[in-house]
């Protein structure tokens, strides 16, 4: 699913060295949910700040010098590129180090890497977004992109769930999408608390109940691996063909450019041939490997 050719991604390599990061400065940090923060940052280099562009679905490698590098999808939309946003879930050495950085701190940035969502395939179609937990981050970039180009797409369904109400990410976006008439959004939580009035249930079951029609629609799925594994069969039952099911996968990555060898599913490298795949592409390797 290489929608963008490689040369587009090489435009912003520092000194033509694929391992060399640019310096970016943190401008704002929003606490989304316990342990998850969205980092707003921008390039220190003026020229890059203006010229940098990417496509929804691409990711970047953020570094905390002295600690290491980690992979983060760019969660802001290409249409709003006065700054960049990445959602950081505090789970490991680098992410913890990132959370210790404050506004104004410097980070390393390599990117944009990976392919992007198949915009041509989606043009003029109904879009069904299925997100789980922090898996909403990559979808968010595409959702805002679709909303900013609303006429290119028919109706937009969003089915998004998280473990608990506190774990719902990007609450402010959920609110504005809820108010947007042209978007039909369903949020659910595995287990609600006192103040939760919305639905309860796992995303795949809620998806089955919402039952969006598969007729010239494209489903874009992202969430924890277990959710993805249970969502594909539901989509198949609703009539989606493997080509209509798009997902963006998460793997351990180090180089981000298909060299260090670890992020493969079968012969495909998630960092370079992905992270966006159609279910058709990874079907024969996904059952036992993913």
């Amino acid at each position, binding site marked *: 699913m290489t929608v963008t050719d*490689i040369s587009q991604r*090489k435009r912003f390599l520092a*000194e*033509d*060295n*694929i*391992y*060399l*990061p640019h*310096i970016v400065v943190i401008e704002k940090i929003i606490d989304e949910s316990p342990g998850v923060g969205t980092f707003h940052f921008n390039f*220190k280099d003026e020229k890059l700040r203006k010229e940098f562009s990417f496509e929804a679905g691409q990711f970047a490698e953020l*570094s905390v*010098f*002295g*600690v*290491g*590098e980690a992979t983060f999808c760019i969660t802001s939309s290409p249409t709003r590129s006065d700054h960049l946003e990445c959602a950081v879930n505090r*789970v*490991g050495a680098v992410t913890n180090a990132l959370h210790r950085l404050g506004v*104004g*701190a*410097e980070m*390393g940035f390599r990117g944009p890497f990976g392919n992007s969502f198949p915009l041509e395939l989606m043009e003029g179609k109904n879009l069904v977004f299925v997100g789980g937990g922090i898996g909403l981050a990559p979808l968010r970039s595409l959702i805002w992109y679709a909303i900013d180009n609303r006429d290119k797409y028919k109706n937009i369904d969003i089915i998004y769930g998280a473990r608990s109400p506190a774990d719902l990410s990007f609450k402010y976006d959920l609110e504005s999408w809820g108010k947007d008439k042209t978007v039909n959004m369903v949020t659910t939580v595995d287990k609600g608390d006192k103040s939760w009035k919305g639905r309860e249930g796992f995303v795949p079951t809620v998806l089955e109940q919402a039952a969006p029609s598969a007729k010239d629609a494209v489903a874009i799925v992202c969430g*924890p*691996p277990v959710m993805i594994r249970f969502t594909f069969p539901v989509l198949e039952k609703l009539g989606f063909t493997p080509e209509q099911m798009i997902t963006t996968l*998460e*793997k*351990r990555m*180090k*180089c981000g*450019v*298909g*060299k*260090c*060898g*670890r*992020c*493969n599913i*079968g*012969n495909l490298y998630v960092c*370079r041939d992905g992270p966006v795949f159609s279910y058709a592409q990874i079907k*024969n*390797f996904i*059952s*036992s*490997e*993913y």
Partner: protein
Amino acid sequence: MANKKIDKKNISKLLKKWSQEFSVFVPSLENNEAIMAEWDGKDISFLDWYRNTVKPPKANFLPLMEKLFSFKKRKGNYQIEVPPADKSKQLIFGIRPCDARALTILDMTFTDAYEDPYYLARRRNTVLVGMTCTDPYDSCFCTSLEGSPSDAANVDLMLTDIGDSFLMEAVTDKGKKLIASASELKDATSADESKATEVKDAAASKITRKIDARDIDKKLLASFDDKDYWEKVAAKCISCGICTFLCPTCYCFDINDEMVKNQGARFRNWDSCAFPVYTKMPMENPREEKWHRIRQKVCHKYEFYPMNFGVIACTGCGRCIRLCPVNWDITQALNSLPVKV
């Protein structure tokens, strides 16, 4: 241009001449372990004992560890400095055909889509002087993978031991240039040529280990989900890094930062798909179990690389068989695949 010939006793003169222009690497013994090391200027005893190195010549291009860049932090902002490109011109003397072919296979990954500046700087500054393998190990199986003990395709200059001298076949322009100005050379006679052919055939016939590499990628794809088979094959593996670190066609690496006070550097060092932490993510590890990892190692070389580059990423050098602590043998794993295509 007719092949040349050089007497063994003149080899050190030739190496001395080359040392003016290149840093010359020759097989040497370090604590009884054969590796490629810089020539000390006189010792050519390796001509007697050398069969192949333990650490493959890939280590001269993708070193065990190398500094990608360094960084300094002064009052909150960072300066990044890339070490100057490796300008030193290398000459590797005595590289075996399987290791030379392995470098060509590595080139495919390091030039595919993105170019790796560090690996390619060294690769493009290096001349390979190959040496026909006259004494292959019982673990070698290069003949099963379109290779041979005398395959000169991936070197600049090929030497073949014909008794008290070496036949020299220049393969590339670099190779021709190497021997153009050398005075100690004589023209090879037809007797030398036939002796060389005789030596080459004898070497090839010594190789007894075989695998059937035809459609091996299809067989592997068909048995990809055969959990019982892979569990049986992986049972005795201890998940150490020997077979991958010492494999000439393995290139996986890890990237790690080092920092003391406010100065540090980012390093690249060898990594292995045999290690569980290689693919470990905070929430889960797709290759948690040993049979996942063994399957990945075999399929990467014999199925995924052919799917991506059309060539099997193995040259049959036999190191993984010779050096494995539990004598895990890839040829047995491949020859007993449950699926016949």
